[in-house]
């Protein structure tokens, strides 16, 4: 298993999955990332990131019931695991720590 630190895109994807709670699947995640973060991303990249996160045990997935609008194909739905939540918290507290350490003088 790779290191457990979160890459930037991984973190965003993880947050987006959390946002979409229980409805997170490829296309929706892609659109959400594009909208919220104002960047384009291909669907393959999204799948790749989701796969990475699954390998790190930050995401769990299950297949939905078949849906007609996708040519009858089932969606693979993602949900953030406990470990995923912990990882998000760790990275958030790390950032906040760093933010609070910036002297007033530096940012005016």
């Amino acid at each position, binding site marked *: 298993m790779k290191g457990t630190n979160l890459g930037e895109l991984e973190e965003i994807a993880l947050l987006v999955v959390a946002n979409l709670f229980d409805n997170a699947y490829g296309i929706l995640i892609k659109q959400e990332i594009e909208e919220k973060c104002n960047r384009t991303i291909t*669907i393959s990249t999204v799948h790749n990131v989701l796969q990475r996160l699954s390998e790190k045990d930050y995401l769990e997935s299950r297949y939905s019931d078949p849906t007609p609008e996708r040519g009858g194909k*089932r*969606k693979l739905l993602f949900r953030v695991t406990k470990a995923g939540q912990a990882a998000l918290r760790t990275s958030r507290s790390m950032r906040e720590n760093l933010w609070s350490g910036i002297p007033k003088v530096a940012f005016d």
Partner: protein
Amino acid sequence: MKVTPPKQLIWLLSKCCNPALWESIEGDLMELFLLDLKKKGERKAKFNYFLNALAFLRYHRLRKRQNSKKLNHMALIQNYLKVSFRDLKRNKTFTGINLFGLIAGMTVSLLMFQYVLFETSFDDFNEDADRMYRVINDRYHNGELIQRGAITYPTIGPTMFKDFPEIEAYTRMVPSTGNFINYEEQVYRTGDYLIADEHFHSFFSYKLIKGNKKECLDAAFKMVITERFAKKLIKKGENITDLIGKPINFNYPTSFMITGIMENPPKNSHLQFDFITSYKSFIAIEGQGADTSWEWSDFYHYIKLKKGVNPESLNNKLADFSLRYFKEGEVTGNDEKFSLQPLNEIHLDDTMEYEVAIVTNGETVWLMLYIAIFIVLIAWVNYINLNTSRAIQRAKEVGIRKSVGAQKSQIIRQSFIETLLLNFIALTLSIGFVFILQPIFNNMTGLDLSMSIILFSSVMGIPFPILLIGILFILLALVALYPALLVTRFSTQDVLKGSFQLKGEITWLRKGMVVFQFSLAVILITATIAIARQIEYMVNQDLGIDLDNTIVVYGPVMTNWDSTFIYKIDQFKKDLSSLSGVEIATISNRVPGSGMGRIFRITSSADPEAQNLTSNHMSIDHEFAELYNVEFITGRDFNYSDHDFDGGAIKNFIINESAVSLLKFDSPEDAVGRSVNFYNKDWTIIGVMKDFHQESLHRKIAPIFLLPYYSTGNNFSIKFSSQVTPALVEAIEKRYNQYFPGNYFDYLFLEDEIDSLYDDDVRVSRVSNVFATLSIIIAVLGLYGLVMITLVRKTKEIGIRKVLGANLGQLLTLLSKEFLLLVIIAVLVGAPVSYLTIMEWKSGYAYSINIGIGLILLSSFMLILISAITIGFQTRKISGNNPVESLRSE
């Protein structure tokens, strides 16, 4: 109309993507496509779909895992290899037999392939080799072929070129034997050289290092020298190209100018020479006849056909050509027939008379190839045989494999891998052996061969190594397949119970193969003994002349021919004979062992019908017969007064026994004193010599006219009373330089020269010795293995028989019977075949040994004896066992 994304792409992706994710990926792509379809239209949607889909291939995480099935394969192969290795180790005897056979077969084949590829590659370096031909000239006399020669008349090439538009180019030449040249006040002896016309370098693809292809031979007294010869001439610090423009002197007032330097002729060129002088010099020296004669006969012509011309169509027109110019013998006295000999066949045809090319016996080349293939066959037959027999021992393993669910294909694969492994080991070792044996082999063949010949040749456009591997693989498949198929036929239960029998078909096949092997062995042994005896016969044959303690000294080429020459030679010979240790010296234009010139249009006074005869001729002096111990049947030998500075005044000559009947005289006594007309004058026969072998024993003794001519190019033969000592040779050299200053003294031993006539035969003999020995060893080893397997199977039977009181002798007969029978059948098959083969081969010799049934019986008996010893030896071992032990063995 419902638009769908491209199907093929989905299919491709589905093959590559991780199946667990595939559905969601496909769904997502579909969804995107539908969205795009609404927003951007069909084309854009399809395009995007395409890009998106392809993008998935970037991520190995999303790709199909190297699935578990494949790993399993690897594991299986490892298991096969492990089992194969163990099996090879466990049965050292069989592995040894198989390996020995395979290594011997492969090593021999690799070496033979080198040899055959080299011998068949001659003249391939010429760009249009497939369109190049040499004109050959058959001469008929009264409907009888009297000469099948490579030489013809000077006008043939140019005339054909003029008459036949099919011919694109031609070149003519006169190949000449070694000579002496004088360069910067030093005399050098040269190897053979060519006198060739200005087309030579455009026609052939020999490479010029310096000089102009078209101009280097286009005028009289120009010459092109090869690199190797140039290196002899240059002084320290000079470049070979510095020789351009330098003069070289032959024994002729005008000196030749070097106008070109060329690379040495490639090893596989049928023409080998040190330098080329221009044809125009030849005309200048010898006269216009060299250009325009229809009778001078020493010229070689090569033609190149235009692309797409069928050589047969031109060949058919050559009959008219003969009629047109030779008018059925009016011109030369013979009916002249011409034909085209393809360039790449020249080297493999050693039957031509007056051949100057490097030639070899083409049949020998192919024979070697066949024998090599035989050996490989014998080795592989062993392999199949032993493996089939051992299938029984391996049956348990197969049974277990099958019972745990191995499929047929897997079991075949196992067998195949085992074969592959063994052959791979054998091949690797063989290549090692080839490198070790290469020098010995090169010595045997007298050629400079190496593995690179195999690596860089191609046959019919396919690189040879690839072809070889392909053939090997197909053969391996066949070799491996039979035992494998056999094994899979066993029923699992029977095998595991340990009760099953070999089917009849298998025993039959095995027996057939043993018969096949031993028949081949019989043929090889017989052939080998026959060849060896034939050579022994030829080398030790009484030639009718005495060659002991004789050296040959090169003639004084650089000395001018004048009226004092004959006297000078005579003084020189007398001077030599006065040396203690030297018996006698003679001068002649041919020494024993070399070919002779011809005289045409001879008319005998015995019979007016006897016109237009042809005979060989030699020029000798009055000591020749004495030195070589040739006996006279009747008449007298030459004496000093028979020679004359003026050739026209000479009229006495001697003939050999064979010439008597040619000239239609009743007896040698009848011939003496009679006149014969040739060279446009009447000659008188003064004596008849006993026939002696002037040429090698490959040729029949032919009629010879011995003429008392002298020339500066003739060689001396010097006979010693005992051994030749260096001091004696030095003394001779001193006198030689006194009498003939400015010449190059060099000598050779006549016996070596005579022996070298049989080099080719000795070579074949050596190679066949090795082959026959190998084939016997391999065949006998195979038999050994088979007997062993049978005996192991019969351990119990032997035990029971012993308990019931059978003695050793009874057991031996019982057990050896079936095998000995096989060998005897093989001998019965092989003997007639070898008899026919030998008869065929013997027909190539004018004088050959009588090969009777005795020889074949001998070799058959040898083989049966060897087999009997092999079988008996093993049977004894087994029968000696304690029956208690063998009965317990289960």
